[in-house]
């Protein structure tokens, strides 16, 4: 079973070996509404934890995307910018955004598990 971690800025990170696949959560896409634009970094870009890695825009507003861990971008979902609605339709599947090769493994433990994230969201909603 794969491990999925969550950031307070509503990105998810699924651990795959020494890398994480990153996207935004179902809660985040629901808050944003219809996604019409996704801007992703190029492969090879170096990211620091909590640094901006891209932008997502819904019909309502533009939002920044933040890296859940430090590392370098090894792969991006190339088809996503032309199909931004995938973020709404399948935020943890087809709507994945980038794959980061982790440079500081310890940072993973600072992220939330699913149950903790669910509590976090429930509190934020009130």
């Amino acid at each position, binding site marked *: 079973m794969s491990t999925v971690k969550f950031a307070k800025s509503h990105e998810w990170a699924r651990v795959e070996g020494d890398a994480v696949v990153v996207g935004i959560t179902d809660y985040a896409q629901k808050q944003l*509404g*219809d996604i*019409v*634009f996704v801007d992703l970094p190029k492969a090879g870009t170096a990211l620091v934890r909590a640094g901006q890695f891209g*932008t997502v*825009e819904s*019909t*309502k507003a*533009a939002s920044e995307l933040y890296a859940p861990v430090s590392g370098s971008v090894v792969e991006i979902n190339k088809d996503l*910018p*032309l199909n931004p609605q995938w973020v*709404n339709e399948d935020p943890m599947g087809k709507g994945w955004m980038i794959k980061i090769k982790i440079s500081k493994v310890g940072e993973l433990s600072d992220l939330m598990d699913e149950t903790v994230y669910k509590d976090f969201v429930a509190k934020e909603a009130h």
Partner: protein
Amino acid sequence: MDLRKTPFYQKHLEHNAKIVDFSGWALPVEYASMLKEAKAARLTCGLFDASHMGEIRISGPKALDFLQRLTPNDVSRLAVGQMQYNLFTNQSGGVIDDLMICRLPDSFYCVVNASNKDKVFAWLLKNQQAGARIVDESDNTALLSLQGPNSARIIEEVFGQSVRDFKYMHVRSQILDKRPVIISRSGYTGEDGFELYFSERDGGFWWDKILSCGRQRGLQLCGLGSRDILRIEAGYPLYGHELSDEISPFEANLNWVVNGNKDFIGKAAMLEVKNNGVERLRVGFVMQDRAVPRQGYPICSRDKMIGEITSGTYSPNLDKFVGMAYVDVSFSQPGSQLSVQVRDRFYNARVERFPFVPIRTLREKSLKTA
């Protein structure tokens, strides 16, 4: 501050609307998806709660003179049962508000923007003349707008009468099911549609009836988000974006609204703008690159700022990013290349003629051939 609620507030909540503050009103911005809502209004039919709009009734023997003096379009051309797009303009030729004037048998029914209603009412009182009575009916008026190709069939079922002879930009004041209703064939989408004004206490009755008749005809509840998308696609200006106290109708490309053969407040200043030639013009543009244009973004040409976006959106009916802007006149011709600054990057756009979608209102010409 407590937000004002329309008679349909509970209905919106029952349909899981996302409620926002719009000019002090609690209104749905969307139910599930504003893109889906904007598509439905062009494919089948959309129902919009526009009860926040202001309704001001002008009556009395001098009502026509009064409106003629305050507006640039010729109100005397309206026969009873017709309506007209018009403006209230200030002394310096700017726009106080844009409005629809419906000529009813006993009065002129003026429909104004919610955000401007108090300003307009104060302006009317300030300029009031003997023989013109001004009544603000906004508080007890509900307004539903039904828009799209299926709206005529739904209206016929709801009210049990044919709309075959009901022309675009015409209005009827009637008693239906023992309730007073004003119906106009008009809207803010570019589609065939109807706007229905009734007493707020009858709101629930009509809402339920429209929904039950609309169910088989693909009726979709639509929020303010889709209303904005649809009016941008149709090329219609919105006060606070394309219109303001400081913008001339000649800059806003509303020359057709200004009738030079009558006198009205702001005429001299407006004609001076026209004769001197405007420096900026309202234009429509389509993004050539994938980027979301939004109000306030600068428009450039070779490092020089030549304009600013006033409205922008993703158009689900065209699958393009479109918008409106004020640009230097030398860039206002269709085909002119623009560069839109989004955050720290520049994206290509091109000036294109309004409307972006075919207008399908039933103008008299098309009625005759139908």
